[in-house]
């Protein structure tokens, strides 16, 4: 009796596990090409101002930097973008190999066009990305980036708390650098130079 019960339990248990595994394989985003290294960065699929879709899978082969912010951010976002653009100047010609993306955590107000205008002041090569809340959240959580909307005053409407670090991924799409807010441009430059070698 007990053995039968156990067998039945094991059988149903296996079915449950198998079903879950099947569902995961069917529904979950495809993992990266089987490098054996846990893929932290992504996957994500976001829209740029020129109408193109930027997919994390397709970014492999070149290192890239991601910063999550919003244009209604008075200080941290412009500062981080400014420092990154200064760092890229210090890196020199090799910087052309690094793609830098500003991912909006405020898709309601930041259209791809608003982002493009905003970023052109820092570095013409910076690309603004946006998408649905879920698409952005997927990109953010994949990198350990936090963001949360909260009510502001009647004037501000709302504000968004967000991680202020620049995340840099290597050619294999692995998260390699987390540059906290206020990292000096010189230090960013030396880290990036190393990564671009």
């Amino acid at each position, binding site marked *: 009796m007990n053995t039968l019960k156990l067998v039945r339990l094991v059988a149903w248990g296996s079915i449950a596990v198998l079903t879950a595994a099947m569902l995961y394989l069917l529904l979950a985003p495809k993992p990266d090409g089987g490098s054996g290294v846990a893929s932290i960065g992504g996957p994500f699929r976001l829209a740029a101002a020129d109408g193109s879709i930027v997919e994390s899978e397709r970014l492999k082969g070149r290192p890239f930097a991601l910063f999550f912010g919003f244009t*209604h951010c008075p200080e*941290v976002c*412009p500062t981080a973008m400014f420092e990154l653009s200064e760092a890229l100047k210090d890196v020199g010609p090799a910087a052309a190999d690094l793609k830098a993306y500003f991912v909006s955590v405020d898709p309601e107000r930041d259209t791809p066009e608003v982002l493009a205008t905003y970023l052109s002041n820092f570095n013409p090569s910076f690309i603004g990305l946006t998408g649905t809340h879920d698409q952005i959240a997927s990109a953010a959580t994949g990198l350990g980036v936090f963001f949360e909307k909260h009510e502001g005053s009647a004037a501000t409407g709302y504000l968004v708390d967000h991680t202020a670090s620049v995340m840099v991924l290597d050619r294999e799409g692995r998260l390699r650098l987390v540059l906290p807010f206020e990292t000096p441009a010189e230090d960013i430059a030396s880290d990036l130079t190393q990564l671009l070698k």
Partner: protein
Amino acid sequence: MTRIRIPVRAELRASAVALLAVFAVPSFAHDYRAGDLLIDHPWSRATPGGAKVAGGFMTIRNNGKDVDRLVGGTFDASGIVEIHEMKMDGGVMKMRALEKGLEIKPGQAVELKPGSYHIMFIELKRPLKEGESVKGELVFEKAGRVPVEYKIENLGAKSGSEHHGGHGAPKS
């Protein structure tokens, strides 16, 4: 002796004036007095195109015996002004409006600076350009309304009248 002293003094005075003209004008540390409050060097940053907000910074010293409070203000280039606090919490930037304003205790100098307290200019009517001055007002609970001028610094300035030697300012 006396004959010599007079022209020397005059020359000294003239050179002092010339020196002032040369050095004081570019870095122009400007301050404002309102009762017991001393407001030192209000400044802001050039804004990237499309930006709808900016931060205002300064140091406010209370030389009096009573607590005062910065409760609001105006800014010619923006529709709305609020007093905000920003802090970094485990790498996350958090910003909140200070509903009751910013308290300035007697004998205290409160610094409004990037990464901390700031005046938030909301609904910018136009981009702020480096080198210009923008008029505004600060409103204190006790000291009342104080007209000030904000100096607009470089987009990447971390403190007022900072010069970025070697690093070119981005095009705006």
